């Protein structure tokens, strides 16, 4: 029974991690049909910014609880600045072009941003363990768990519910769904599509940055951070279906739980779980679990 609870919690925790990291990507993918490789950069910049300031504030002797504020602030700052620059500077000029070309452009951006991190922050790691240390630990299921990891589940839930509410219960959400379904119709109905695109991209960037910022206290923030999450978030988005938050959530849950089971029972296959799930889902549902209805153009 203890093992079951532990596996469940591990699975939920990893799923939450996956979801937080890929929520931004899925939104951008859904609305703008862009698989944004630079998403890894939002994550990395969010992590570095929050780690940097948490470290600085801690050195200045300020209370550790401020760390949580820094995390949110870092995510917003990174998302707004980077998102705005990238969308207005580069992507805006490419919407008419082939989807794949845009993906490749974001890949080029990713490479550039990676090296800018090296130049800005150097190669040494940044530690921001204070928020995690603050929340301490708790005994659950016969082992010690860190409370911070459990709050990940909470954050993921908040993000999921927030996105759902935004999409389904607000006027803005309806506009967004209209643009997702048919951009041209949206324009002819008078929706300011360029604005929608810009705000969506910034929103996705903020979420990406939040992923990095919130995870930063649990790791050593070092170069190469962004590349790892790209593959993971791609897998989740592809499994979930284009632009579906519900899909990303379910996809994260499936991958997260399966991985936790693998780690506990059959660690040898842990490496394959993510891609095997991706391959299997795609074979049965070629457009992901929650693929949107697409009009057929003749």
């Amino acid at each position, binding site marked *: 029974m203890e093992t079951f609870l532990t596996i469940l919690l591990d699975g939920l925790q990893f799923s939450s991690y996956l979801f937080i990291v890929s929520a931004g990507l899925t939104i951008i993918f859904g609305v703008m049909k862009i698989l944004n490789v630079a998403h890894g950069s939002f994550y990395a910049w969010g992590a570095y910014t929050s780690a940097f300031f948490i470290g600085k504030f801690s050195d200045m002797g300020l209370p550790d609880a401020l760390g949580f504020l820094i995390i949110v602030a870092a995510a917003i700052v990174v998302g707004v600045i980077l998102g705005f620059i990238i969308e207005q500077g580069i992507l805006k000029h490419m919407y008419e072009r082939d989807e794949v070309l845009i993906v490749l452009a974001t890949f080029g951006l990713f*490479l550039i941003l990676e090296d800018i991190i090296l130049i800005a922050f150097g190669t040494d790691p940044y530690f921001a363990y204070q928020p995690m240390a603050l929340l301490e630990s708790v005994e659950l299921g016969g082992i010690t768990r860190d409370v911070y990891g459990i709050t990940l589940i909470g954050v993921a839930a908040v993000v999921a519910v927030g996105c759902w509410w935004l999409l389904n219960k607000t006027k803005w959400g309806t506009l967004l769904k209209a643009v997702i379904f048919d951009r041209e119709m949206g324009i002819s109905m008078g929706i300011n599509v360029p604005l929608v695109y810009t705000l969506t991209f910034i929103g996705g960037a903020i979420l990406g940055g939040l992923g990095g910022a919130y995870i930063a206290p649990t790791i050593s923030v070092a170069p190469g951070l962004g590349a790892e999450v790209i593959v993971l978030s791609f897998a989740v988005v592809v499994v979930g279906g284009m632009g579906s938050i519900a899909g990303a959530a379910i996809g994260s849950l499936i991958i997260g739980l399966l991985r936790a089971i693998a780690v506990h029972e059959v660690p040898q296959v842990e490496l394959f779980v993510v891609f095997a799930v991706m391959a299997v889902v*795609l074979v049965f549902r070629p457009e992901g679990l929650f693929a949107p209805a697409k009009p057929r153009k003749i």
Partner: protein
Amino acid sequence: MFNDRTAKFLLLAALVICVGGAFAPNWIVNQFMFGFSRALAILGLMVLWRTGLVSFGHAFYFGLGAYAVAILDSKLGVSDVFLRLIAGVVVAGVAGFLIGFIMRNYRDIFFAMLNTAISMVLFGIVVKTESLGSTDGFAISASTIFGASPETKYPLFVIITLVSLTAALAVNFYLKTTFGKLTTAIRDNEIRVEYLGFSVAHAIHLKYSMSAILAGGAGALMAMSLGQVDPESMINWTVSGELVFITIMAGPGSVIAPFIGSLVFEVLRTYAFELAPQAWQLIMGAAFLTIIFFLPGGIWSLIEKLGGKKNEK
């Protein structure tokens, strides 16, 4: 076939390069070997791109070709160049044909990602397998040609040049046939192609298998030039990304483009490395962005423009 301007150019290039290689310094010969091996894979990706499909997982076939050579060498002691090449091509080709049954139903980003998924599963398998050298890989003995062990790399260089340029000729010929012309037709409007009486699924399957064969051959040649295989350089998604990078950079305009693109990429990377050992990624990324922005048809479109201007005069 030989009246074609491209074909004539390829034949001439083959001659010039083979002769020039005898006098060129070793490091240039090596760059060409790597560049042309890779160009073979890009030839296949170009055909797919013309069909509107981009695969982010062709390192799967590239890696299969490379490892086929390596395993043949270590387990069976086969060192003949042609046997190795055939092994690489056959293994990758069969795999591509089988996987093509599934792949031919996918489009866009899902096509790209399913290929990635498969390639990463192979990556995981190789990394986990100690007898395959895990991430360190293992070395390949020097290639022999019909039993003779050449002293220098020159014979291998000639073989790689001839093989890749012959493949280019073959693809060029193919693209002029009806089935070849279906590539751009499918990209433009699949449904109309079906109305015309062709099976889109079959056409895509054929092209996919072709691209697998080419990528497998490329992997085999690369393994032989390098003398070493390892999963990081041959199966990882970054390798697939690199192949796509060069495909786009080269442009889809002609079968000569992959060769030029591959060489330009090598040069670019070498100089980025030398100039800025800590910021070479930035230079590559910027170069990439610039090309995508200003040269949507790739480097080849630039060459075409220059050539066009000459003709006008």
